[in-house]
């Protein structure tokens, strides 16, 4: 374990046993987050990004969930070997999590302040009065106007943006080393999203916390993350520093995702949609899981899974053709990758 790494996930396999068969939701996930770093975990719905975060916190219900292999090292210790009591101690205090829907993370029948105080007492082991002070301080930190009044409110009296601030205040009150944020701004309006993203960025920098930001929005990633891991169908297909990922994406899926964003300068062009749909994870395609949708898939892609290919020190791609990919940048706009409809 590299000492600079706060979190290291090695070969995580996460399965769900269902009536129809085993859903291989995450298969061989490798991911590192170093201290003070913000890492984006990007992918479409069902790619395994959220369940991976829940696995870090030990929040996968087993059954139906099953950790079928791998290690999750946090500060060098394997979280998967921890007892429920030890995990409870780690959650909130060392690792916190923010969810997409702040409304459903808060209890509707208790005042916001009481819930915050409760959580702070639990994580910081302080008195009620002390906890109240911390809560007010944190609400101040998240730029909440009139924290005193907010403490007295019930969740339904507040807007989504305000509630997400409360959640951030609550989750950061334990001064965690790692914050897991699962689509924290997806339910919010863009103007509010911009506020929350900037707020989170500043706060984690101030507290020197690391963040694992789970999102489907490449725009959000570009604006907030230091490094990005792109997931597809339960596997990481590409990891790179944010800037490098956007300027030199090597995996066909990453490039496909970027092509899906309407380019304001090319109004008349068809969007480069990725053909087909996400595979069934009970019977995922053999070889590279992306090969049935891949514009440049060769014979080998259906036969064996591509190993990691290092493009540079911290740019790793799981693709047989990763080294050739940068030559033909325009290629994403033609060929099989574009859904030619009708």
């Amino acid at each position: 374990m590299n000492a600079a790494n706060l979190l290291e996930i090695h070969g995580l396999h996460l399965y769900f046993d269902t009536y129809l068969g085993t859903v291989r939701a995450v298969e061989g996930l490798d991911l590192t987050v170093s201290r003070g770093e913000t890492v984006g975990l990007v992918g479409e719905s069902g790619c395994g990004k959220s369940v991976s975060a829940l696995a870090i916190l030990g929040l996968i219900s087993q059954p139906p969930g099953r950790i079928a292999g791998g290690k999750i090292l946090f500060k060098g210790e394997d979280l998967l070997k921890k007892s429920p009591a030890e995990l409870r101690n780690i959650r909130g205090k060392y690792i916190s999590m923010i969810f997409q829907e702040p409304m459903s993370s808060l209890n509707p029948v208790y005042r916001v302040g009481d819930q915050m105080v409760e959580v702070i007492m639990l994580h910081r082991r302080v008195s009620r009065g002390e906890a109240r002070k911390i809560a007010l301080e944190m609400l101040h930190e998240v730029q909440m106007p009139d924290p005193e009044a907010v403490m007295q409110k019930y969740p339904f009296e507040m807007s989504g943006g305000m509630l997400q601030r409360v959640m951030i205040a609550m989750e950061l009150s334990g001064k965690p080393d790692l914050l897991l944020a699962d689509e924290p701004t997806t339910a919010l309006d863009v103007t509010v999203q911009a506020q929350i993203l900037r707020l989170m960025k500043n706060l984690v920098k101030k507290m020197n916390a690391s963040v694992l930001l789970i999102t489907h929005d490449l725009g959000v990633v570009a604006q907030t993350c230091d490094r990005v891991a792109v997931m597809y169908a339960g596997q990481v297909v590409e990891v790179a520093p944010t800037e490098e990922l956007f300027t030199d994406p090597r995996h066909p899926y990453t490039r496909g995702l970027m092509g899906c964003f309407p380019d304001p300068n090319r109004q008349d062009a068809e969007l480069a949609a990725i053909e087909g749909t996400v595979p069934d994870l009970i019977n995922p395609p053999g070889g590279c899981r992306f090969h049935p949708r891949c514009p440049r898939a060769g014979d080998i892609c259906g036969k064996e899974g591509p190993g990691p290919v290092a493009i540079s020190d911290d740019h790793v791609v799981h693709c047989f053709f990763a080294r050739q990919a940068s030559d033909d940048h325009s290629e994403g706009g033609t060929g099989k990758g574009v859904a030619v409809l009708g």
Partner: protein
Amino acid sequence: MAEVLLEVKNLVKHFGARKAFLEPVRRPVRAVDGISFSVRRLETFGLVGESGCGKSTTGFCIARVDDPTAGEVYFEGMDILKLGATEMRGIRRHIQMVFQDPHSSLDPRMTVLKSVGAPLLIHGLATRRDVREKVLRLLEMVGLGVQHLDRYPHQFSGGQKQRLGIARALALNPELVILDEPTSALDVSVQAQILNLLRRLQSELGLSYIFISHNLGVVRYLSHRTAVMHLGKIVELGPTPVLFARPRHHYTRALLSAIPVPNPRHDGAEIILKGDLPSPSRPPSGCRFHTRCDAASALCAEKEPDLREVGEDHLAACHAPL
């Protein structure tokens, strides 16, 4: 200038305003508070704004899913809000709608044949005998096939369901299709497929669209003219390229700058608005944006600005336009 297909005049929709029998009176939510615009033939008219700005309600009112509180909606010169049930049924054929959530816009208990065939049967455009063939033709138009006819909605992915929703809307051969956030529930890769499809259908079938979305990138890609809504009002309306390149209303500018750009070299939002959207049941006085606006003056809190011409075909409701 192209021919006007639909004209909306002073459309108002208040929710909860009407007092139901034996029910308590509530403060009305002023979802749409007097908006006017027109949609031209063959154009895509974008309607953008944040949640609660009234953009979807506007769509529902035009499609007469909701009954507006006041206002006029002229379709080909006829005020469709004054039409009775039978006459409205005729107009329905020309104005159709695609809904936001593909998962709930199809009845889970109906096969594709029944869902997509329903408009044909209701309007007598197909008989029980040839409905299958006609539905198939619609499915082929949206990139689906004969193998999908007898399936149920849950057997489809989100993108396919949205194609079904589009097929149903096209069944009556409409002139105007209201697209209410048609891609916001979909993954980006699928969103691109649907946008391409919508674009292709528009040129092939000669459709006019009202494209309702909170996603400015998508609106920019698809629409010719765009109206920005804020708390039940249109604050700015203009040709899409002009509006995006040089917004004149402070809200439009803030909205545009808040979009996360998928380019790490981009600085991020330059203008970050303070606070949250005010509640549509108690909108601020004067200009409804003045509580969050940098340039707000005393006048803004007092007097509501009218939508005024600020450029060619370009309107903005601001006392101090940019």
